[in-house]
């Protein structure tokens, strides 16, 4: 039998499943843990050992000690297990730990970055911006960078809507509007997930060579890249911070993509446990990446003078390069690759209208 992704009945089942889960989630506030705990303690206080004939049965069924699979005529991955106890564990993890702690994490990192900006300030180019530029990123490299950036931001946004929706958004926009938003986010997130995988592959192929460990990288790392204090540490095209981020993005990204694919295509015989694990690893790794990217965006925009130019125009300032990527800048200078600002402007077609700057050219009619 051929495995078809999302045949209509599975899609319906999924829709039903989501709807069901949504209902469950909406009903959760009514069945708070305190109420449940209260019921349990009340039960434990009443320590008269009245044997409940079905207690043994239900204890086995409840499978608190682990999943027991029995035989069944229904052919399916989990159909031998009546109840999956890890579902409760997973649900509690998501509601009580993942959501609040990731919220604190994201807010905290945002605060830290803001503090860093106000205390350390924008990292300036000590020698000042010059009129000389170095060619840093080709058109293709800039294209795939902004491609992965926009896809990542979209996935992060939709993912966070799905994560924090119930706690942050429903109180604000109500349930009907949120259900709409959540559905939209889910569909968008699921469609763009594989797009991110493609983007990741393109980024890897293009940049992997420049991210191999080189001599001096460890020194850079130990000195913190000179981010505290005024000193600069020499580095190659990419410094150890950038290389670390690259490898993190690739390795963690593989987990993100892998877990994401497992989650979005539940047609390969994944058991509930697999799905739960996939979800947890997806959540943890993506949050890690979001935090790292927040730092990346910070340093690439407001955090450092001259950092953004390379990825927008393709050219970076020579002084910036000398200070932040000294060994690379030196090689470029030795190879005579320094370009003037006027030349960069010309290549970008920034001379006004159709008039070509005269190189001994005469005016028309003379």
């Amino acid at each position, binding site marked *: 039998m051929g495995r078809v992704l999302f045949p209509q009945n599975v899609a319906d089942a999924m829709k039903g499943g989501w709807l069901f889960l949504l209902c469950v989630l909406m009903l959760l506030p009514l069945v708070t843990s305190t109420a449940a705990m209260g019921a349990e303690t009340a039960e434990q206080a009443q320590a008269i050992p009245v044997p409940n004939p079905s207690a043994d049965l239900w204890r086995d069924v409840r499978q608190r000690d682990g999943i027991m699979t029995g035989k069944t005529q229904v052919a399916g991955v989990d159909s031998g297990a009546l109840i999956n106890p890890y579902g409760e564990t997973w649900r509690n993890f998501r509601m009580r730990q993942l959501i609040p702690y990731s919220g604190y994490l994201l807010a905290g990192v945002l605060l830290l970055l803001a503090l860093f900006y106000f205390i350390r300030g924008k990292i300036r180019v000590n020698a000042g911006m010059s009129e000389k530029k170095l060619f840093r990123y080709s058109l293709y490299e800039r294209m795939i960078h902004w491609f992965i950036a926009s896809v990542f931001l979209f996935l992060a946004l939709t993912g966070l809507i799905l994560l924090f929706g119930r706690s942050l958004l429903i109180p604000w926009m109500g349930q009907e509007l949120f259900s709409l938003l959540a559905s939209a986010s889910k569909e968008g997130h699921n469609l763009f997930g594989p797009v991110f995988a493609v983007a990741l592959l393109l980024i890897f192929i293009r940049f992997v060579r420049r991210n191999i460990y080189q001599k001096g990288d460890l020194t850079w790392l130990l000195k913190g890249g000179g981010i505290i204090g005024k000193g600069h540490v020499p580095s190659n095209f990419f410094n150890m911070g950038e290389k670390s981020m690259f490898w993190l993005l690739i390795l963690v990204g593989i987990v993100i993509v892998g877990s994401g694919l497992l989650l979005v295509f539940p047609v390969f015989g994944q058991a509930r446990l697999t799905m739960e694990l996939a979800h947890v690893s997806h959540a943890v790794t993506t949050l890690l990446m979001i935090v790292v990217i927040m730092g990346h965006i910070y340093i690439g925009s407001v955090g450092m003078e001259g950092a953004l130019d390379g990825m927008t125009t393709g050219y970076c300032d020579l002084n910036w390069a000398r200070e932040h990527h000294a060994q690379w800048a030196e090689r470029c200078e030795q190879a005579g690759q320094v370009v003037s600002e006027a030349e960069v402007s010309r290549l970008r077609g920034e001379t006004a*209208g*159709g008039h070509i700057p005269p190189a001994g050219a005469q005016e028309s*009619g003379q």
Partner: protein
Amino acid sequence: MEHDFAKGVEELGRQIDSRIASYFSSCVHCGLCAEACLFYTETGDPRYTPIYKLEPMRRLWKEQHTFWGKFAVKLGLSKPLTEQDFADWEELVYDSCTMCGRCSMVCPVGNDIAYMIRKEREGFSSAGYSPVSMQDATHRALTIGSPMGVTLKTLRAALAHVEKDTGLKIPMDQQGADYMTLFSSMEIVNFPEYIESVARIFDAAGVSWTISSEAFEATNSGIQIGSHEAARKIASRVVNVAESLGVKYVISPECGHAYTALRWEGPNLIGRAYKFEIIHILELLDQLQKDGRLQLSGHIDTPLTFHDPCQVVRRGGVIGPPRDLLSKLATGFVEMADHGTMNWCCGGGGGVSANDRAEELRLKVFDRKRKQLEALGVKTMVTACANCRIILEEGIEDREMDVEVIGLTELVAEYLAGDSVASPERSLD
């Protein structure tokens, strides 16, 4: 020439036909035309993008032919065309375009951008916004008969040399000859070997031919500067004389745009079909060889390649003849990677060679041809356009390359069978 902006805009508007309208409507600004244009590839300057050179015409089209365009100008949302636009774009339209037509071959929506430039030049030249050196050349062509100022006297002197060297008589003003041939000024002045080759070949092949003392110039400055009035006058001279002499064919010589002017634009300029046919010299030679009237013997072994003159091959349609002839003559013939209808322009066509202001740019973009040659590693290049020849030779000298340029007709004359007349001096090995 005085500037007359209103006249220019009016003429430019008249040039917008269905083709131009469809071209502007289809253009999605993809930028692929730039990748085919040697002025962009060799400078990296995006303003040399072919369709960008057409901005003034595009804005006029938008204003006159589109719904929103008309509205936008009325509401003041977009600016109408101004004289400054003509002034700003003159260099793009004339200095950085040879109308070579490579862009027309690659546009994904099929825009014939070289055709558009030809039309845009009509507007610019009417307005007086064209290079002075080209205006002077056109003036000379109209008054003297040649853009380089070659007079009948000059021609007669050149002919006398040829007659002396070959011992042949060059027929002048022969009524009823089969073929009337033309020469370009460039050939008369710089490459008179062409005239000699033609004389010897026609003698060997028994061709009944003549030239005319009243109309011997093949080039048409009107086509280059973009003045249909001038182009018509210049073409008419040839047509009237050819028809009064009663010839069957007029031969277009080794000159690029002369062929385009006479073969493809001429009847439309004068408003009627000719009473004779236009044939390119290469077409004639190829035909004569295939008919057996032109016997060749021997061949050249030097590795050589062929530079396709844009107006003859890509824009003219004379694709097979040069190759068929070379295959009979040259054992070491190798094609450039981009060859035939996709070969790269020499950089001097479309009036650029007559434009002093464009010299620096023209020499810069010669790098494209240089790279083509270096990739092949040949030291001999054959071509069939006198203008290309001089431009290529200038570029070769400027880049200090060691490449020789030969004309194809001369090469054919080199290897005429049973030839008792001494060949022109040349060492080919």
